[in-house]
């Protein structure tokens, strides 16, 4: 018997015993194989040491019974859940609107950044600004666009994972026998993605600070006043 035989046998037995969350369980055993292999055992040796798939499925089946008995689908629980949803669902709507708002910010920043950097003034919407300064300011706004896009991705992953955890909890509490997911404090990215996102965030932040400072200094120098926006009547 090799890993594939064992796992497919186990899957069959789990199905036959109506065990919930089979995918999660199979993953646990897959990892067991991976760890044994890393310790220098063959798949066959690993199988030989494992208890039979039926025995394991039976062990899981006894847990399921208790879980469904323990969680009676009573009216109070369901009513409570509905009232809870009245608060929680709007909360998630607010959270996802926040993601949408940050996305809009990022989009607006990209457009503005391109307009400033390219010295394009469509319909005279952008107030007067000497060109080299507007290029720097455009670069700063573009960094802000990258920064807010990263923020949006981060928030979206976090909220989506929270929402998934809540959905699981909801199903479990309603008596579905669904096990709880861990509610993440921060999005669960792979180490590589996390590293990349962190570096990109840092880079965008530094560029934003450098370019904004440079643009401000240049504007002050060009206008000869500490408040160049008054000179060119930006806010009138």
């Amino acid at each position, binding site marked *: 018997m090799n890993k594939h035989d064992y796992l497919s046998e186990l899957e069959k037995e789990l199905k036959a015993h109506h065990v919930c969350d089979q995918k999660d369980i199979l993953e646990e055993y897959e990892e*067991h194989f991976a760890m044994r292999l890393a310790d220098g055992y063959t798949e066959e040796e690993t199988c030989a040491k494992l208890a039979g798939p039926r025995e*394991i499925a039976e062990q899981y089946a006894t*847990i399921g019974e208790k879980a469904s008995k323990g969680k009676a689908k009573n009216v109070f629980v369901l009513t409570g859940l509905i009232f809870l949803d009245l608060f929680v669902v709007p909360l998630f709507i607010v959270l996802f609107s926040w993601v949408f708002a940050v996305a809009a910010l990022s989009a607006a920043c990209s457009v503005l950044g391109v307009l400033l950097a390219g010295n394009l003034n469509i319909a005279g919407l952008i107030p007067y600004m000497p060109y080299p300064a507007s290029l720097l300011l455009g670069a700063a706004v573009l960094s802000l666009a990258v920064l807010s896009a990263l923020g949006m991705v981060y928030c979206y992953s976090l909220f989506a994972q929270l929402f998934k955890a809540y959905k699981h909890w909801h199903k479990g509490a309603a008596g579905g026998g669904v*096990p709880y997911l861990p509610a993440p404090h921060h999005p669960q990215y*792979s180490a590589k993605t996390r590293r990349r996102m962190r570096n990109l965030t840092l880079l965008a932040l530094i560029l934003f600070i450098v370019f904004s400072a440079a643009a401000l200094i240049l504007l002050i120098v060009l206008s000869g006043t500490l408040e160049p926006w008054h000179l060119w009547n930006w806010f009138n």
Partner: protein
Amino acid sequence: MNIQYKKGVLELCVLSLLNRRDCYGYDVSEYLSKRIDISDGTVYPILRKLKSDGLVTTYLSEESGGPPRKYYSLTGLGKKEYKAAKEEWLEFSKTVSDILKEDENE
């Protein structure tokens, strides 16, 4: 040893290990099978049961480079239950060994 007999005791051993440090599933499995004669793979259902009873919880944690691993850790309830179960077991096992020793004196 009889499997049914072992089950309750195994739960206690798992709780004891988790009381010391957070572990991933394979860690627990290896730790127990080194000391107690059980088949591999029987620890995972125990972990799941403890989780569904609210005694342990899981979280994902990344090792350097590898995929995220599921760690098990004791909840507040788990710590309380473990303490109580440990006391109970120690007292019970002492009584049993006292009883078993009595026949030597006769």
